[in-house]
């Protein structure tokens, strides 16, 4: 880098920071393989007993399945509406869609606690408390900003004249979307879907307020676990969650790289 190299102090602080970021997350792996019945590093041997327990306890498997369903449904909602919205905003003039763009960012900015208490009252009136639909709507609407952002980024690199050409040759709006715009922005759509999925899969604050018995997601189960009894099955589920997030992120990075090449 042209004769300037960062000093040793900078390197040391950077490394310490990375270790601080990564180490606590990796420590749960050995803890989840412990041969003991309490949270600890393995004493004598590695054991998969806590994974077996996790995958054979109906309370855990139900929570995992519910979370997977909710995340899938809310991702679908967020991706379809978010993509259409981003395309509309992109094609219309900047000024007239400024308000829409700003509003779409609110769910990222406003603390979930403020939304959660509002939704608690709002859903009580609509009879949506503790319902699958209610949680899907809440996660869908808060996941939408991620899709709008990634799709808008993908659209910024897209030549609007292609769209005009398609329309000029007589393609309808739907045909243009399907055959001209969507294929070019697909990587952005997939990125958005990945982030919307992770968002719903991890979301806890809203669920704490609007769900109680019938809807019981994985984060909710982990939350109860941390507050009531810390046992190694929690470490096992944490490892599964981390594994899934890392896989999804690597998928996203691979897609981005393919797009750049």
């Amino acid at each position, binding site marked *: *880098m*042209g004769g*300037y190299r*960062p000093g040793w102090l*900078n390197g040391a*602080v*950077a490394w310490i*920071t990375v270790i601080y*970021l990564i180490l*606590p*997350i990796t*420590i*749960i792996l050995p*803890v989840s393989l412990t041969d003991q019945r309490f*949270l*600890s590093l393995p004493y004598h041997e590695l054991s998969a007993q806590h994974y077996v327990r996790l995958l054979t306890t109906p309370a855990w498997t139900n929570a995992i399945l519910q979370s997977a369903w909710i995340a899938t449904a809310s991702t679908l*909602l967020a991706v379809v*509406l*978010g993509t*259409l*919205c981003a*395309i*509309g*905003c992109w094609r219309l003039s900047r000024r007239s*869609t400024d308000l829409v763009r700003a*509003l779409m*960012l609110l769910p*990222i*900015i*406003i*603390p979930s*606690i*403020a*939304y959660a*208490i*509002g*939704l608690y*009252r709002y859903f009580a009136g609509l009879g949506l408390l503790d319902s699958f639909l209610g949680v899907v709507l809440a996660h869908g*609407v*808060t996941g939408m*900003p*991620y899709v709008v*952002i990634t799709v808008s*980024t993908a659209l910024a690199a897209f030549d609007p004249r292609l769209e005009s050409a398609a329309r000029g040759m007589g393609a309808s*709006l739907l045909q243009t979307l399907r055959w001209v715009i969507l294929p070019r922005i697909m990587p952005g759509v997939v990125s958005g879907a990945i*982030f919307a999925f992770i968002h719903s899969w*991890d979301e806890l*604050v809203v669920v*704490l307020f609007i769900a109680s018995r019938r809807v019981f997601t994985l*984060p909710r189960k*982990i*939350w109860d676990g*941390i*507050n009531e009894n*810390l046992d190694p099955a929690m470490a096992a589920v944490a490892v599964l969650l*981390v594994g899934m*997030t*890392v896989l999804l*992120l690597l998928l996203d*990075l691979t897609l981005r790289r393919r797009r750049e090449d």
Partner: protein
Amino acid sequence: MNPRGRAALGWWALILPAFLLLTAFYLAPIVQVLAISVTEPRPGFGNYERLFTSESVQRVILTTLRIGVVTTAIALLLGYALAFRVAMAGPRAQRWWLLAVLVPLWISVLVRAFAWVTLLRRQGLVNEGLLAIGAISEPLPLVWNEFGIIVGMVHYMVPYAVLPMLSAMREIDPRVLAAARGLGASRASAFLRVFLPLSMPGVIAAGVLVFIFSLGFYITPALLGGGKTLMAAEWIKLQILDLIRWGLGAMMATVLVVAILVTLAVFSRLVNLRRLFGSGG
């Protein structure tokens, strides 16, 4: 209607479903919070008076601000060092450094709080380790206090601090540093007088972002604070779910939202959320 107008109508129709969903299931509940804060238990600004009269309300606000400021300062310091190192690395190494920032960013906040509890509690790995090597004679209180909250919150915020600073640093031509050195500046003054001022917009953006995220944080303080140190979000939950004082809880939520939106509006030219999530995440 002319064809251009009809086309524009078509594009507006694409925005409509998202806009309706947002209005019906996001904006309406938020507006309801604002409404509750001035109507319950009785209409008027009685709840807001508590900001000036109630000691417990003031204590919560001060605690939230204090933890927010400390978290922001530490996250900026660590984040700056990391971002600088990443910016100076070669393209291949940069990918690895970036992965080390992005993976924690997207890992569940619950999982991270759990990991910190595992490490820091009385019988946790850190205390057991220090006891085993004889560095301490009894366990240190590392979690369920303010120290634990800050460790957990900084851990969450460092990636958010790195990304805006990194994108600002990438816009700086690295040759200016080499030029400063070539003209006889010491390593320290080349950094302090050339690079640091040029990277300042990124630092401010990162600071604003981390600070506003810290203000409304719920999960990490609730799990690592042990109920003794109350920040705004946990206090709101307590008012509403445990004490059923809706007006007071909604008032605090409104204050939180207004404080965050005003901060963002003041710094709107510097903080680009779209770019943060579009390019970084």
